[in-house]
């Protein structure tokens, strides 16, 4: 539908409708509220938390939850409640960054394989298949060991790289269908170069599945970061990051359950709610 002056284009109308649908789904609203809460904590944690999560270690060690310390204290005498509040920061930095990296690389890879097909597609698809034969954690552990670094940014890049084949596959499927359409043929006949066709014609029209992939992978990225941190790769103590806390104290789960239970609940709440929102977005696009 050609844009008529004064009337919003079809795409704008569709976006508005989708947004309205999203706002009306209860699960999405609950999910967004919880995620929003954690984002606020990540940004303003120091002001919200009653005590300093890293350096304020003057409280009695290893106390179960009390009125003063609703989540108890840890073996270093720090207030667990404050640590849980601030602990959302690292995860909420690393996971979206990794997902973004994976989405960008995956989209590029998917565009190239889906558009050019042929030998390039075959070879790259085999590589994608091979990488997908391994669970994420296994590849991540292998690469982290080979690179021999526990830096958070290395972990971010690794997760992003490992997501790339997954996302590439979805993008490739979408590009395959899109590339058959007439307007692509028309562009080629006009003499447009491949880069132009891919970026200006195909890409805007495969954005919906890419957006859905991003939101779905985001939940998975949080899962991956949490698991790698729990295993000791990535975010290190004394960071109050939730998985790092679990890494420190899970051995002591009996009897110091509160040092592990509350960070675990925090992770669970974040991941579940991100997935609620992602599911909502996915349903709206289908």
């Amino acid at each position, binding site marked *: 539908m050609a844009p008529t002056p004064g009337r919003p284009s079809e795409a704008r109308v569709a976006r508005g409708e989708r947004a309205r649908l999203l706002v009306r789904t209860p*699960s999405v609203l609950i999910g967004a509220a919880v995620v929003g809460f954690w984002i606020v904590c990540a940004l303003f944690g120091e002001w919200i938390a009653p005590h300093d999560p890293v350096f304020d270690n003057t409280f009695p060690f290893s106390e179960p939850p009390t009125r003063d310390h609703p989540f108890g204290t840890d073996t270093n005498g720090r207030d667990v409640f404050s640590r849980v509040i601030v602990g959302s920061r690292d995860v909420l930095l690393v996971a979206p960054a990794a997902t973004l990296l994976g989405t960008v690389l995956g989209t590029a890879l998917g565009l190239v394989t889906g558009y050019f097909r042929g030998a390039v597609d075959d070879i790259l*698809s*085999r*590589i994608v*298949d*091979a*990488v997908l*034969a*391994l*669970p*994420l*954690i*296994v*590849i991540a*552990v*292998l*690469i*982290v*060991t*080979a*690179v*021999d670094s526990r830096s958070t940014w290395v972990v971010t890049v690794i997760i992003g790289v490992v997501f790339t084949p997954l996302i590439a596959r979805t993008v490739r499927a979408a590009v395959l269908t899109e590339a058959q359409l007439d307007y692509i043929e028309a562009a080629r006949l006009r003499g447009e170069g491949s880069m132009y066709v891919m970026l200006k014609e195909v890409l805007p029209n495969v954005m919906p599945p890419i957006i859905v992939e991003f939101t779905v992978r985001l*939940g998975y990225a949080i*899962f991956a970061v*949490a*698991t790698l941190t*729990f*295993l000791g790769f990535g975010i290190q103590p004394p960071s109050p990051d939730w*998985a790092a806390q*679990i890494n420190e104290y*899970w051995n002591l*789960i*009996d*009897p110091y*359950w509160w040092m*592990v*239970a509350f960070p*675990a609940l925090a*992770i*669970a709440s974040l*991941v*579940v709610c*991100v*997935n*609620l929102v992602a*599911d909502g977005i996915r349903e709206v696009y289908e």
Partner: protein
Amino acid sequence: MTRYVLKRIGLAVITLAVLSLIVFAIAQLLPGDVGRAILGPFATEESVAALNRELGADRPIVVQYLDWAGGILTGDLGMSLGRQAPVWEVLEPALVNSMKLAVLAFLITVPAGILGGVVAGLRAGRPTDRTITVAGLSLSSMPDFVTGIFLILVFSIWLGWLPVTAQWEDGAGPATQVKHLLLPALTLTIVLFGYIARVARAGIVEALNADYTRTAYLKGLGSNQVVRRHVLRNALLPTIAVVATQVGYLVGGLVAIEVLFNYQGIGLLIYNASQQKDFPLLTAGVLVVGIVYLTVTLVADILYGALNPRIRFVRAE
């Protein structure tokens, strides 16, 4: 059918070869100097050079790869640096353990997931369906070790019903083994339930809307008979595919769970090998995980093709 099977096997072999290349490349090329990576930054030049010579890491890359790959094909996976024993000796018991856990988890998860999915599908759109679907997906999205921690908190610490670790004493009977494995298995059930239920549900919904179901009703068959004879069979087909992909996770992706429950499976082995920089053990472990996954998906593909003739004539992507 034979052509389909052969094609699938061929693809699997190629993928395996590519996988071995990738694993080798990561382990040998990324660290730069393998000897240095193992011995650390404080080792002397001579000891690093000596280790490199011993490991054969000073030979051309292609030769190293062919040597390694050739070894695997003949069953020689090299020597574990940390344990000073042949890799396979260390790997095999871990693999067996992982299989035990996978089988137990499988036996609980698959029926539960299918049941949940079928119930949700038969009542699609109604509250029961929404509850099962949302609950399933929410529980699936939680990291496995988080679910494991919750289960430990409830069943081990609070209720005291089940042991915290999955380690049993040598010579323990199957009942004791199962008791120790129950918590990890239940954790896995919770993690995987959502996926399996979702696919089973989708299959049921699709089957319920299909023409052959309408025909069955029009023929005069009662609800129960229709569901049992026609709907279930077609709904279960896609479930096989999903279950197969989860097996890869079950045999090797359980690093976090095995660490949490201190279970000597292949995931924990890979983790320990990584801590000790035991590259031969690490790469062999990773490769074995990949092999298991490829084998299982191959079997599932063939099974799927056997049960659903339509698939065989679609060009393999």
